[in-house]
């Protein structure tokens, strides 16, 4: 009996280990990936990028339950392509590079909405504030990997980006559009 139980147990374990619902592990290819943030200045788009970030994903597009996504962003790699602005955003009123050099998004709840569209329900930690965030994305698989792409809008005020007098949204808008394209390949 013990033997049978042990065998059954092993079967159960291996079945669990092979459970496709856990999905494959994916690693980001930085060369093919881009993370943009588009603020507005006097109602005109003011684009920027985070040059350094990384995404790790455990995901099966056919069975997204049990998937997880972890994105780390080196906030200090922000570049808005305007020398004076790049100098300003380092400061305490904006990203506060010294205090909060890194941002994170974590989700363990990824769901399909329709076709190749999904939403990752998770939380964004940015400048010491953690807030729930939904990240919609499309998934495009190919022979050598996959691409996830999406965009969403973040309220900068919720994270204290633009403190004090900058909190007013008439000059620098309240909404920041975030656009991402992440090229992934299967890990290991």
């Amino acid at each position: 009996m013990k033997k049978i139980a042990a065998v059954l147990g092993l079967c159960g374990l291996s079945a669990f280990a092979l459970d496709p619902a856990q999905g494959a592990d994916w690693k980001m290819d930085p060369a093919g990936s881009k993370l943009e943030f588009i603020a507005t200045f006097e109602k005109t788009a003011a684009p920027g990028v985070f040059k350094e970030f990384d995404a790790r994903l455990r995901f099966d597009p056919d069975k997204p339950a049990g998937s997880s996504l972890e994105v780390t962003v080196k906030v200090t790699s922000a570049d808005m392509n305007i020398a004076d602005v790049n100098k300003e955003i380092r400061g305490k009123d904006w990203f506060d590079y010294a205090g909060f050099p890194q941002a994170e998004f974590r989700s363990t709840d990824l769901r399909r909405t329709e076709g190749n569209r999904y939403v990752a329900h998770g939380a964004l930690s940015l400048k010491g504030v953690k807030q729930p965030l939904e990240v919609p994305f499309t998934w495009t698989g190919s022979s050598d990997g996959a691409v996830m792409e999406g965009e969403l809008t973040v309220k900068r005020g919720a994270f204290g980006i633009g403190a004090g007098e900058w909190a007013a949204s008439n000059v620098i808008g309240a909404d920041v559009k975030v656009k991402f394209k992440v090229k992934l390949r299967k890990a290991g």
Partner: protein
Amino acid sequence: MLRNDADSWGAPAKLFHWVMAALILAQIALGVMAASWRVSPTKLELFFWHKSTGMLILALVALRLLWRLANPTPALPAGMPAWERAAAQLSHGLLYVLMIALPITGWIVNSASSIPFRIFWLIPLPAIVAPDKPTADLVALVHGGLFALLALVLVAHIGAALRHHFVKRNTVLERMLPGTWRTP
């Protein structure tokens, strides 16, 4: 009377003169405040209005030059000394050059700084030079130098107009005033 003739300015020429005079004075105030304000939303707002007004002035000066070329220019008073005629021509020429050069150098600074900008929130301003910080810094100095020159020429222009009216007692100033103020 719309068109200029040998003695007087028509209504469009006067309108151009006084609207642009008001815009240029406002523009100087905006520019000086924008440049000297501490970094704040107010500073950005001042720059936004300064840039928008500058592009408006550039558009208006283009129309104004076309109108001037399509019309006779009223003659200077008879008997004006040669140096005064030369000074009048030089200062008027300089004012036109500055009304074009100041907006364009401002435009270059904005382009070289790659600052996204829509004139009065409406018309996207295309970049006329590639983003480059040294270019932006250099042309900003030129822009400031041209402003100093404009201030000098404006003082001369206003001083000369007042001198024509109060000292030489001719019609040079009066004929630029709106019709109802004119003495027959």
